[in-house]
């Protein structure tokens, strides 16, 4: 192999590495700038901070507060919390199977002038902790349970 072909290969390698580095930083810049468009939902705290324009459609995400769900006719009311701020939600329609108190949800709709979030769609969001019922019950019983906690991973 002559020195000339070696240097051509090195040049190509530098080109590839530089190209990828440029591309990566470009992508990082674009994604950072577009952050608000990429996030799927805002927490109650973020929504209160934002002073949304009236009638602006947003997605609100958080946990359904324990004991807050009330049903009147076809309309469900509940409170969504991020443990700091709370927003009351009112929704008429079909709820996902996973909807329950303490569960993560994402509601799409508008924040009314009365401060109640009028949702037109409610989706359930679950976490990445999968376990059989007995394990969940045992964790709850011996007090090791926290919402959103990671179970003791006994990988085989």
């Amino acid at each position, binding site marked *: 192999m002559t020195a000339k072909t070696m240097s051509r*290969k090195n040049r*190509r*390698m530098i080109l*590839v590495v530089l*190209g*990828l580095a440029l*591309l*990566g930083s470009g*992508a990082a810049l674009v*994604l950072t700038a577009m*952050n608000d468009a*990429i*996030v*799927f*939902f*805002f*927490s109650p705290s973020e929504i209160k901070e934002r002073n949304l324009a009236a009638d602006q459609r947003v997605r609100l*995400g958080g946990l359904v507060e324990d004991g807050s769900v009330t049903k009147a006719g076809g309309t469900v009311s509940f409170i969504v919390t991020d443990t700091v701020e709370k927003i009351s939600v009112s929704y008429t329609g*079909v*709820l*996902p*199977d*996973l*909807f329950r108190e303490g569960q993560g949800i*994402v509601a799409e709709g508008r924040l009314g002038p009365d401060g109640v979030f009028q949702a037109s*769609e*409610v*989706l*359930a*969001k*679950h*976490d*990445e*902790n*999968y*376990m*059989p*019922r*007995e*394990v*969940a*019950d045992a964790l709850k019983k011996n007090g090791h349970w926290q919402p959103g906690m*990671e*179970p003791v*991973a*006994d*990988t*085989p």
Partner: protein
Amino acid sequence: MHKYANPTQFIRIANAVLPWSTAIAVAAFVIGLPLALVFSPPDYQQGETVRIMYVHVPAAWMSLMVYMVIAGSSAAFLIWRHTVAHLIARASAPLGAMFAAVCLISGMLWGQPMWGTFWVWDARLTSVLILFFIYIGYIALLDAFDDPERGDRAAAILALVGSVNVPIIHFSVEWWSTLHQGTIITMDGLTLSGDMARPLLIMVAGFTAFYVSVVIIRLRAELLAAKIRNARQSLAAAE
């Protein structure tokens, strides 16, 4: 490394690997499918739908792994002009697209009953859909030029450009709020109970071994296609 760039040498190694990868794939599916479908417990929240995970996660994993193989091989092809590297990428692409499609379809079938929707445009779902389109674009570019070498190079560059999407897919659930849950692979292990982690890991092994076996078969076809092209040329020259 350059030794393996020799097609004859490479196919000899691949042929030696093939029976092993096939045996692993068959064994993993024979053990993994009953575990996934029958003997693993239902989830405390999601019930029986958690079984979708045992095909969804391996397909998702493979769609990323195969892409990394394609991106790495494309870099080797562009820098060192290794033809075998290019053929590996070429043979892998339809398999990667298939894994991405299985991941998307099984994900939709899991999202509908659990989240309440087949599809949302959150960062994770969107970036995986883009990965699928990159696969399709790569396959389309390979044979889009009259001069095959130009197509090969254009596709390899697309594969490298598309590789920025790989970390975006993986970290999307951490960088932005998404409807999709976080990753089950953490520094402390898997966020799964043991009797769910076992079938999942076995299925991941099965999908990986399946890919290795099928890509070797595809590689044989690609090497033969190259030989056929050469033979045609010499035949035409002789006439």
